């Protein structure tokens, strides 16, 4: 979540005061991300230091300053909008690690472990769908955020289903018997 870039995007519509930026940020992101005033001003100060925004020259504590985007800020915004987030390295996913270490744990029913997580993720999806179904038809921001969350959770459930099916087809390894060395064909994978 890039708060600095989101603020640049709001300022690209015209100069704004800090408090208004905070309100607009929340409304424009489906009111699912809250932002405190301190974060807004700290971020604006950093953006100003980097020459991406500039403010009115006023006295006082800075709370009433009006900010506008600079040419460099517009360039940075355009670059950010077109740069896909870093997806190259898979994250160090706790669930995947949990399932991998469970494979050889004695007395652990892996299907049950998978089901506990499947239920949890499906319940989270029910929660999202419930909110989406109750939202006003024109609340496009909320619908977009809910969809993103639903697709993300759905991907986890699909992985659990695939893992379950894979384990059913192939008997589980004997408990406690670890392989002596990595398989020759298996590339060493270093995850972030």
């Amino acid at each position, binding site marked *: *979540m890039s*708060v*600095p870039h989101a603020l640049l995007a709001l300022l690209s519509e015209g100069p704004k005061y800090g408090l208004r930026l905070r309100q607009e940020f929340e409304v424009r992101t*489906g*009111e*699912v*991300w*809250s*932002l*405190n005033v301190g*974060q807004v001003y*700290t*971020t604006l100060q*950093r953006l100003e230091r980097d020459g991406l925004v500039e403010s009115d020259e006023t006295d006082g504590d800075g709370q009433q300053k009006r900010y506008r985007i600079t040419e460099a800020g517009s360039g940075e915004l355009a670059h950010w909008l077109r740069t896909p987030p870093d997806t190259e390295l898979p994250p160090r996913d706790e669930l995947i690690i949990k399932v991998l270490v469970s494979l050889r744990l004695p007395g652990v029913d892996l*299907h049950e472990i998978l*089901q506990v997580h*499947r*239920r949890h*993720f*499906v*319940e989270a*999806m*029910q*929660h*999202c*769908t*419930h*909110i989406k*179904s*109750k939202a006003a038809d024109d609340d496009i921001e*909320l619908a977009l*955020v*809910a969809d993103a*969350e*639903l*697709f993300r*959770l*759905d991907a986890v*459930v*699909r992985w659990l*289903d695939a893992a*379950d*099916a894979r384990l059913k087809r192939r008997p589980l390894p004997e408990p406690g018997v670890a392989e002596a060395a990595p398989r020759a064909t298996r590339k060493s994978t270093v995850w972030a």
Partner: protein
Amino acid sequence: MTAVIELRGVTKVYGEGASEVHALDHVDLTVLSGELVAVMGPSGSGKSTLLTIAGSLEDPSEGSVLIDGLALAEMSRNDRARMRRRSIGYVFQDFNLLAGLTACENVTLPLELDGTSSKAARVLGLEALAALGVAEHAARFPDELSGGERQRVAIARALVGERHVLLADEPTGALDSANGEAVMRLLRKAMERGVAGIIVTHDARLASWADRVVFLRDGRVVDQTAAPVGPESLLVPEPTT
């Protein structure tokens, strides 16, 4: 809330001896009026068998099925057929509309088979199509409708007249994401009128529209979710700069 669909200790065995397969193994499931229950499970888990037994298209090997408190096993063949026509509606992935009949005729067919006059059936058919937002397509044939429109007609047929038991097998499987969501919104709206529904699916996004999700594995109910409750927000943690 009253129980509309009840499966009590339902077991279904196909084959005999060495080739015996337990499609369902002592399944208990109750669906209340106004409740939508999704049954999730991999292929071969018994989902479709559960649906056909709940809809009285097949008999259980053991256990009983009650619709509106009446045990199917104790009904005569004719009474069961009448109950199927009057109370139970099916929705399938591939719509199953009759190509030679208009949308309205497809919807009114079960009523007319049950002895309702053509005129009265047409009134009820148009009402059902209007509730699904497709009344203007009443005179069109299925091949003149889009996938989303066809599924709405199929749901109208499933809920026409007094029908209040909805059994659906992957009802959004052939639809894109937007049409699938529109169909689920309409199904949820139907539940508000007191319909009891079971949807079988392997799609968690579809299942998430249900009040409760039941997980089936090797013919057994292994788990279920609670109804969605709690704060009406998506609760995303505060971002950090």
